[in-house]
């Protein structure tokens, strides 16, 4: 589904990603872990098409298409979804109108009929249950005055509405208390099928207790320096990142 080859990206001339290689197949869950500043969020942003980042080398093929050629909205319509680390508050834009516009633009691109108000509302009600989000919240302006947990739940709710092929969760767990974490994870797990894939960017092993990954990758200094099964996450939890850093640094020197 997703094939990242030798991806290099920089921001304002500073290289952040220095040769990422990653293969993600349908039905898989990948966790990307790593110390602060290793480039985890940059990778998520580059995949979603954030303009500040300049891709200097490499390619990203998504279902046979060169993802880097597309504007952010086209990537979304192709099936890439980024759950933001910091969802943006947008005063004056109602969550419902926004989502309806988004869902219908995505549907149009995929050759589906636009949903009328009734059908849209039915779909919304069904997906709201997934993350236990209150309808009152959705009649307000987008994310405005939402608590941290509500914002993260709203991200997963939007993901449910847009039905992506590849979901990228950028630190979706940070700042959540355990109850909110369970709700969010439960939503993500229910959305998992054999046809879609998930990339979780996280700092903490805790999330992986609730959303179990098939693969764990450690990102350090702009490269994936170690990949393994979910046991790798447990090892990281126990031993920290230092042993990986040391190994990676010595490798570079050699």
């Amino acid at each position, binding site marked *: 589904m997703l094939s990242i080859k030798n991806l290099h990206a920089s921001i304002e001339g500073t290289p952040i990603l220095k040769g990422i290689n990653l293969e993600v197949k349908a039905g898989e869950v990948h966790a990307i872990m790593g110390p602060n500043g290793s480039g985890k969020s940059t990778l998520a942003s580059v995949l979603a098409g954030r303009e500040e980042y300049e891709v200097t080398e490499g390619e990203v093929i998504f279902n046979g298409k060169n993802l880097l050629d597309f*504007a952010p909205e086209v990537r*979304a319509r192709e099936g890439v979804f980024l759950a933001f680390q910091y969802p*943006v508050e947008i005063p004056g834009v109602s969550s419902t109108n*926004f989502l309806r*516009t988004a869902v219908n*633009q995505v549907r149009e691109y995929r050759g589906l009929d636009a949903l009328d108000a009734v059908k849209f509302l039915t779909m919304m009600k069904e997906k709201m249950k997934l993350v236990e989000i209150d309808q009152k919240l959705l009649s307000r302006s987008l994310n405005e005055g939402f608590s941290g947990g509500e914002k993260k739940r709203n991200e997963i709710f939007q993901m449910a509405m847009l039905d992506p092929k590849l979901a990228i969760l950028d630190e979706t767990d940070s700042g959540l208390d355990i109850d909110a974490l369970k709700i969010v994870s439960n939503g993500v797990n229910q959305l998992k099928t054999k046809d879609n894939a998930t990339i979780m960017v996280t700092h903490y092993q805790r999330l992986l207790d609730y959303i179990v990954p098939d693969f764990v990758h450690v990102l350090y200094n702009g490269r994936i320096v170690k990949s393994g099964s979910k046991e790798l996450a447990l090892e990281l939890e126990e031993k920290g990142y230092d042993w990986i850093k040391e190994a990676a640094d010595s490798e570079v020197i050699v």
Partner: protein
Amino acid sequence: MSTLIKQKTIETLIDLSQKGFESARTQAREAFASQGMPGVKSEEYKFTAITKKLEQRIIDTSLAESFEVSKEMVEAHVFEDFDGDVLVFANGFFQQGVSSSVAGVAVSLLSEKPDTEIGSIAKPEKDPFCAINQASFADGIFIGIPKNTQLEKPILFLNFTKITAGQVVQPRIWIEAGDFVEATFIEQTINLTPTSSFVNKVVEIKGGANTHLHYYRLQNEGTNSLAISNIETDVQKDSTFSSVVISLSGEMLRNNLSQNIVGSNSEANMYGLYLLNGKTHVDNHTNVDHTVPHAESNELYKGILADHSRGVFNGKIFVRQDAQKTNAFQQNNNILLSDGAVINTKPQLEIWADDVKCSHGCTTGQLDEEALFYIQSRGIDKIQAKGLLLYAFAGEVLEHIKNESFKSYCTQLVEDRLGAKF
């Protein structure tokens, strides 16, 4: 040389041949003589070089004449779904024949009401154009709304202008509301000719106690319109006056809006939205004068400026020594869409009372890139995402239009302009 032209403009803008209200006209001529036309150094007009514009555009400074307006023209131009009474004006002259008779309301020519104390609310000493109008308007309209009248439907002032060679239109309106009156006024202007026009308007509104008035204006007359308006009201006790002005096009527009709060437990609201492109220049000067305790004023002006347009906002709030427990709020927010667009904004608060709550703020910025990316990342294209954000910004002002048909008409115009559609 420029002095010569200026002199000529001054002399001819004041038309000495107009009759009636002799003492008011004399007073206004004197008021004008002491002020003169605002030059580049005038504090009140320093960002709006209207004198220079008039010298360039107004070839014939005589008063434009009235012309016939047909019923069909009225029907064709009244905005969609309007439900109410229409008062029609041709170059500022009231057209009784094609106007509605407003049930329970006295509508007549100002000349038929010679005792009207014109200039007592919008004082000619305060603004040279207010003085010019008072000295040389031809005739105006008097609207008297008796005590206890609640008008369920709005009154629409439908102004047609038809100018052959840059003449001047000087409308004058006097509104007098008794106690417990509720009414809504809407202003819409249609420019029938592409020639440069200069409309210099004065509206005086005398409220009663416990009156609740709404005054809405749409400025969308095309790129050749030069217009100055002085709208002023006294807000009596237990009353509300709410103004909303939506400015979408014009060459140079200057709106002077003043509310004098003279009764306690009252509220003065002023809202404005200006969406400017091309070389449009819109200047909103507002003035709230709190003279008594326990009153509130709310002010929100927002602008989106593209191309080489220019916006000016000047908001004065006076809180006099007696006006304790005043709540006065003012906001001016602007989005600049191009490097060539300019905004000059100046909040001006003068507070002599010590137990008051006053706040003001102004912001000027570009579109929020992070918000734009967030919206795009959900599959919405960039143009629409921009429109959505701009519309959300503008919508906060539109919310204050309480008349549904006018609100949806303005909303439509704003949506079309911003490319936002739902």
